[in-house]
C-alpha cells in the first residue's frame, strides 16, 4: 500500500497535461504552454496519455460534451484543472498535481464512477451529442455498456471527440443499418475511391481535442485508407471577445493608443505560434520548442535587440531546411485566384503556393516583424497588418482560410492534411458569433 502511495507520488512529479482550449482562451493556452515548457511537464497528445485535463479559458457550452468524453477517456490517476485567466494557470496546475499524488483524492474520484459507471460531472443528455455528426448509434452504446469500472468506462465511451477526434462510433457508414458488430459498432460503409474501386469509408472527425490544433476547429473527414475523400470544416462555438492575435489592431480601431512596435510584437508572436504548431505537426520537435520559446519571449516583452538576431537565425534555419521543403513541397497548393475567391488574406495569400511557400512566408514576415519590435511610433495605416491579414467588415481572414480548407484537403493523405491545416492555422476566435460554420460541397 505504501508502494502505491510512493508510486503515485513519483508519477505525479512530472504529470502529462492535456490542454483543451476554449473559444477566446488563447492567452490562457499560451500561459499554460509556457508553464509546461518551464516545468518540463510533457504536453499529452491524447486522453490516454494524460494525467491532468486543463481547461484553458471560460468553458463554452458546445464543449461540455467534449470535456466529459475526454475526462472519461483518461486513465486513473487523473485530475482536472481549470484556468479562466492566464494568471491562474500556475496555481491550477499545482493543485492538480497535488490531487494526482494524493491517494485518498484519487480513491474518492474513482468511487462514484465505480458505483454507477458514470462520471458524476457528465451531462447525460450530452449537449455535445447534437454536435457530433456521424456518431450514429454506436455512440450511445458506448454510454450503456462500460459500467463496471472507470477504466472500462473510459474505453467504452471512446467516441465522439475524445482521442483527438477518433470516433469509432462514427465508423459506421450511414447506409449500413442492421449490420451488427460487437460493441454495437457498425461495419464501415463503402464508396467509390479515386480509382473507381469500392473501398471502405471511415468517418473520422479531427479535433477539437488534438495536439497542435487550432482551438475549436473540427474537420470531419471521410477517409478511404488514409486518403481524404471529403472534408468539412466546422467551428465549435463563437469566439468570445475577439482574437488575441489581432487585439492590438482592434484596440487601435477603438481609438486607443497602440504603438507599431506592440503590433509587430504580436504579429511576430503569432507567426512563431503558427510555426511552432506547424513544426510540431511536421515532427520537428526541437525547432517547434525553439519557436515557442521565442514566442513566449516576444509576448513577455523581451528586448528587441536580444530577440531580433535569434529570431532571424531561427527563421533562416527553418526557411532554408531542405528536408522540410522536400517533405512539404506540392502539398495543398493554393493559387492566388482561388485564395482571393475564398477570402484568404495575409501571408497565405501572398505565399501563393504550397505548404512550403506558406511556412516560408511566415518566416520572411517573422524576420520583418522582428526588426520592428521596439518601434515606438503609433500604429498607423502603414504599420504592420494583423498576422492573418487585415480585418474588414464582411468576413474575418480566418473565415477565408476555413473556406479554402476543404478544397485543399480533397485527395490528400492524412499526414498531408494535417500539414495543410497547420500551414493555414486559422484562428477561430476571429469569428464573430454569427459565422459559426463553413461548409463546402
Amino acid at each position: 500500500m505504501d508502494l502505491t502511495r510512493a508510486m503515485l507520488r513519483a508519477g505525479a512529479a512530472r504529470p502529462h497535461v492535456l490542454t483543451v482550449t476554449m473559444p477566446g482562451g488563447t492567452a490562457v493556452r499560451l500561459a499554460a504552454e509556457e508553464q509546461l515548457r518551464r516545468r518540463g511537464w510533457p504536453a499529452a497528445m491524447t486522453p490516454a496519455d494524460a494525467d491532468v485535463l486543463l481547461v484553458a479559458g471560460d468553458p463554452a457550452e458546445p464543449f461540455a460534451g467534449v470535456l466529459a468524453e475526454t475526462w472519461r477517456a483518461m486513465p486513473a490517476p487523473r485530475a482536472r484543472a481549470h484556468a479562466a485567466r492566464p494568471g491562474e494557470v500556475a496555481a491550477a496546475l499545482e493543485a492538480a498535481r497535488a490531487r494526482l499524488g494524493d491517494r485518498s483524492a484519487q480513491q474518492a474520484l474513482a468511487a462514484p464512477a465505480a458505483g454507477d459507471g458514470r462520471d458524476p460531472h457528465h451531462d447525460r443528455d450530452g449537449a455535445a451529442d447534437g454536435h457530433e455528426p456521424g456518431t450514429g448509434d454506436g455512440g450511445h452504446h458506448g454510454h450503456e455498456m462500460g459500467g463496471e469500472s472507470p477504466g472500462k468506462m473510459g474505453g467504452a465511451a471512446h467516441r465522439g471527440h475524445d482521442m483527438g477526434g477518433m470516433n469509432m462510433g462514427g465508423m459506421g457508414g450511414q447506409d449500413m443499418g442492421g449490420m451488427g458488430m460487437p460493441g454495437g459498432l457498425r461495419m464501415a460503409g463503402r464508396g467509390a475511391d479515386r480509382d473507381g474501386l469500392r473501398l471502405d469509408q471511415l468517418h473520422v472527425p479531427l479535433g477539437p481535442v488534438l495536439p497542435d490544433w487550432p482551438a475549436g476547429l473540427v474537420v470531419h473527414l471521410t477517409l478511404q485508407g488514409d486518403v481524404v475523400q471529403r472534408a468539412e470544416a466546422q467551428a465549435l462555438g463563437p469566439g468570445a471577445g475577439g482574437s488575441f492575435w489581432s487585439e492590438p489592431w482592434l484596440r487601435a480601431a477603438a481609438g486607443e493608443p497602440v504603438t507599431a512596435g506592440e503590433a509587430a510584437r504580436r504579429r511576430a508572436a503569432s507567426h512563431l505560434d503558427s510555426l511552432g504548431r506547424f513544426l510540431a505537426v511536421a515532427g520537428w520537435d526541437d525547432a517547434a520548442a525553439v519557436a515557442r520559446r521565442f514566442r513566449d519571449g516576444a509576448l513577455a516583452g523581451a528586448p528587441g535587440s536580444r530577440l531580433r538576431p535569434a529570431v532571424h537565425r531561427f527563421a533562416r534555419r527553418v526557411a532554408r531546411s531542405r528536408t522540410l521543403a522536400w517533405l512539404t513541397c506540392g502539398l495543398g497548393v493554393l493559387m492566388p485566384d482561388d485564395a482571393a475567391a475564398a477570402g484568404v488574406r495575409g501571408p497565405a495569400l501572398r505565399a501563393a503556393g504550397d505548404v512550403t511557400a506558406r511556412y516560408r512566408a511566415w518566416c520572411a514576415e517573422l524576420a520583418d516583424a522582428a526588426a520592428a519590435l521596439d518601434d515606438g511610433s503609433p500604429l498607423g495605416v502603414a504599420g504592420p497588418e494583423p498576422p492573418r491579414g487585415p480585418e474588414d467588415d464582411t468576413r474575418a481572414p480566418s473565415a477565408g482560410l476555413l473556406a479554402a480548407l476543404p478544397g485543399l484537403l480533397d485527395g490528400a493523405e492524412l499526414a498531408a492534411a494535417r500539414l495543410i491545416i497547420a500551414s493555414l492555422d486559422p484562428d477561430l476566435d476571429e469569428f464573430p458569433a454569427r459565422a459559426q460554420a463553413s461548409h463546402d460541397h
Partner: protein
Amino acid sequence: MITSAPLWSVLVVPAVLAAFAAAAVAADALLAARAAGRPLRAAAAAGPLAEVPRLLAGQRRTTLAPDALLWRLGVLTVPAAGVLAALVIPFGDVTASRMSVGVVWFNAMEVLTWAGLWMAGWGANSALSLVGGYRFVAQGLAYELPLMFALIAAAAGAQSLNVADIAGAQSHLWFAVWMPAAFIVYLVSVWAFSFLGPFAYPAGRDLAGGVLAELSGVDRLALEAGRWLLLTAGAGMAVPLFLGGGTGPALPAWAWSAVKTLAVLALLVWARRRLPVLRADRYAELAWVVLIPLTVGQALVPALVDLTR
C-alpha cells in the same frame, strides 16, 4: 577471440541493454531541455525515467471493442524483439549467443516489430492507431531492403554471418571506413526500426501518437521502452558490424565496446532532433531510387575484394 558466455548471461543482456537505453533517454531529455530553454540539471535528465513509476501506477485502459489479444501481444512484441535482437551482439570478448547466423537472427528480430506494431495499431480499434500501424508497414517497405543490403555488405566483407567473426575480420580496417554507404544506411535504418526521430512516423504527433494514441499504463511503458531498446540494440550491433567490435588500444575489450556503443547512441540521439519526420511516401521514393542501388553497389565492393583475394 570472442567466446560464448554461459547460458545465464542471457539474463544479463536485458539489464545491460536497459542501462544503455536509460542513458540514451537521459541524454535525449537533456537535449530537449536545451531546446525548450530549461536549465540543464540532473532532474531534467532523470525526467523521462520518472515515466516508469508513472506508467506502472497508471491504469491500463481499453477501448470499445478492441482486439485485445492482438493489441497486447503486439505491444509486448516490440520490447521482446529489442532484447532478442541484442542476444547476438558481442560485448567485449563475450557474447550471449555465438550463433552461426547471428546477422540473420538480428534482422529477423528487427522484422518482428513489423508484426508487433501493426498488431498494436490494429488491436486498439481506433482510426489514428490503425493508421499508425499501417504507417510502420509502409515505412518498413522503404527501409528494410536498404538495411538488408547494408547487413549483407558487412557479412560479405567477413565472409560470415556470425557476428563475432564479422567483428574479428576488422582487425586491420573497420568496415565503416571502406563501406561508408552501408554504415550510414545501417544507422538511418536503426532510427527506422525503432520508429524514433525522423522515422517516428508511425507514432507521429500529427496522429496524436499513432500506435501510442490509445495506450496507457504498462502497455504504453512496454511500447515506449521497446523503441529505446531497439535503438540501443541497433547502436550496439553497429559496433561489431562496422566499428571493429571490442578492439582498440589500452582499454579492455568490454570498455571499447561500451565506448563505441555510447558514441553511436549519442550520434543517433543528437542527430534525430535535427530533422523533421520523414513521411514514408517520400522516404520510400528515396529508398527505392537511391538507397537500394547504392547499397547493392556497396555490397558488390566486398564481394569483388573477396574474389580477388
